[in-house]
């Protein structure tokens, strides 16, 4: 009965219209942004936003909390930087090397971590990422505490000079849009639906005949690869790769960005990353340590703001009126 009622209920407003309008405004803002803001700041923001979106594919849509995503982000940064600087690869191939390395790392870490669930999953990913950190600290090619310095940005496809910051910005924006489009495609595919069913009720998904393990592993590798995309681009933007990007603090940061923006919302992490990166830039010049603020925001978010910025908007009267559905 309820099913027929739902179908017959007249729709007040098509949600697609509102969403398209928002998407258009957002894209226009991002295209115009370099006119108003410092390009390197914007590029940093976009890299972290993509990182957080890729992380959210795992936390928000599969229900897996990875505490080790820095390994894929920083790992890809190292591999891209090495490929571009030492092997002389063009930037697009260098980034592909980073993505492949991150995906491979994701396969190993994911294969081990999905053997346990929930809390244990988080602890295992953290421990394995820490192991990778020690590897990076001791390995030859990562140059230890110095990191890989002065990485050339090179020419995209051989003719677009990326050392010009405007060119670089639109390249980063392009990568960001492609990355988010891939994530959108994944979560709206039948595969993505199965991921959500695992998030909602893993036992039920097993009983429906899905090999939950394989799906989890696939989601983990995809998330790691997209994280690698963000990490590789970041190495080109800043022209270095260091230990900071593989440390556990980075894994914590991306969790905060996702939590703050809204777990399980496609664009929430973009807002979370924007806030965190802005805050870091603001505090970088002051004496006050970022860690304290980060920690306090973390605690406050978990206690009273679990839906996050975008999640709260979707849940608000206006959000629901515009047709954004959000199930927690």
């Amino acid at each position: 009965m309820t099913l027929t009622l739902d179908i017959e209920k007249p729709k007040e407003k098509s949600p697609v219209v509102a969403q398209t309008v928002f998407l258009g405004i957002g894209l226009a803002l991002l295209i115009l942004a370099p006119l108003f803001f410092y390009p390197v700041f914007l590029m940093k923001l976009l890299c972290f936003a993509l990182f957080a979106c890729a992380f959210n594919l795992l936390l928000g849509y599969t229900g897996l909390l990875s505490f080790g995503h820095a390994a894929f982000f920083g790992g890809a940064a190292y591999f891209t930087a090495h490929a571009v600087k030492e092997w002389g690869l063009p930037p697009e191939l260098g980034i592909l090397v980073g993505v492949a390395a991150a995906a491979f790392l994701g396969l190993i870490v994911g294969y081990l971590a999905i053997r346990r669930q929930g809390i244990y999953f988080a602890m295992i990913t953290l421990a394995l990422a820490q192991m990778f950190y020690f590897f990076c600290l001791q390995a030859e090619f990562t140059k230890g505490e110095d990191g890989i310095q002065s990485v050339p940005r090179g020419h995209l496809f051989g003719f677009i000079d990326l050392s010009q910051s405007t060119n670089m910005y639109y390249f980063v924006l392009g990568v960001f849009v492609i990355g988010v489009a891939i994530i959108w495609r994944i979560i709206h595919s039948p595969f993505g639906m199965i991921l959500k069913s695992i998030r909602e009720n893993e036992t039920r998904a097993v009983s429906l005949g899905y090999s939950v393990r394989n799906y989890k592993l696939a989601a983990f590798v995809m998330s790691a690869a997209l994280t690698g995309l963000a990490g590789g681009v970041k190495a080109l933007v800043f022209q270095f790769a260091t230990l900071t990007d593989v440390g556990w603090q980075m894994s914590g940061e991306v969790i905060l960005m996702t939590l703050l923006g809204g777990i399980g919302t496609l664009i929430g992490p973009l807002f979370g990353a924007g806030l965190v990166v802005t805050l870091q830039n603001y505090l970088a010049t002051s004496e006050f340590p970022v860690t304290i603020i980060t920690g306090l925001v973390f605690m406050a978010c978990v206690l009273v703001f679990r839906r996050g910025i975008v999640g709260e908007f979707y849940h608000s009267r206006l959000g629901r009126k515009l047709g954004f559905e959000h199930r927690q």
Partner: protein
Amino acid sequence: MAAFLGQLLIGLINGSFYALLSLGLAIIFGLLRVINFAHGAQYMLGAFFAWLLLSYFGLGYWPALIVAPIAVGLVGAVIERTMLRRLYTLDPLYGLLFTFGLALTIEGTFRYLYGASGQPYATPAALAGGTNLGFMFLPVYRGWVIVFSLIVCIGTWLVIEKTKLGSYLRAATENPVLVQSFGINVPFLLTLTYALGAALAALAGVLAAPIYQVSPLMGSNIIIVVFAVVVVGGMGSIMGAIVTGYLLGVAEGLTKVFYPEASNIVIFVIMAIVLLIRPAGLFGRDA
């Protein structure tokens, strides 16, 4: 041979800290279903309180060994009462995230106030010096740490397994609703458990103060290793947590003799192997 025994000793000392910390984690997780990420920060707080007591109040090692754990336990009780308590009905991951934020806040504050470099803490006079065992030189303090932490671990195990209070704790772990309906104050038990876990971490911190330097970063360095220890041991058994702590400490120490480059990752490697062979952990009940 001397190098072998020396590293074995260092392994046992590290193992003592792993055992004390994973014991506290296991007790808290058993009842609260929260992985206490702030455990490392509470360990650091214990060491720092000992250092502060000495520097500002002239209270030495022995009073600190009692005062610091009580102080950290009280702080833990306040945090549990005011904040952590609200998260019990949610997904356990939120407890992990909350305590992670707490750890960052505590660590950041101490780093801000006292800088990132370590502060030395003198070995108490009664335990200074060392004895020659014939085959090796044993600093008395290190021997004390191994013996004392073993006593604390076994004492805690006895309290949980053999006393009335321990039986309430174990019953509340199995079925809190039923235990509450028998008229036992379960919310108070939860507060007590978190305070006890935090106090154990602080006790380990005081013990560590004369061996390692007292630094705001000492907690986050050790907590990730302890997480790996807990994954290897499985948190279902208190004794399992203790035994795994010592075993992995020794394994780490011995790796330093045979293959020093791998000594800081050997515990993670062991964790990976255990996950492949026995995913539930050596003493784990839950899959």
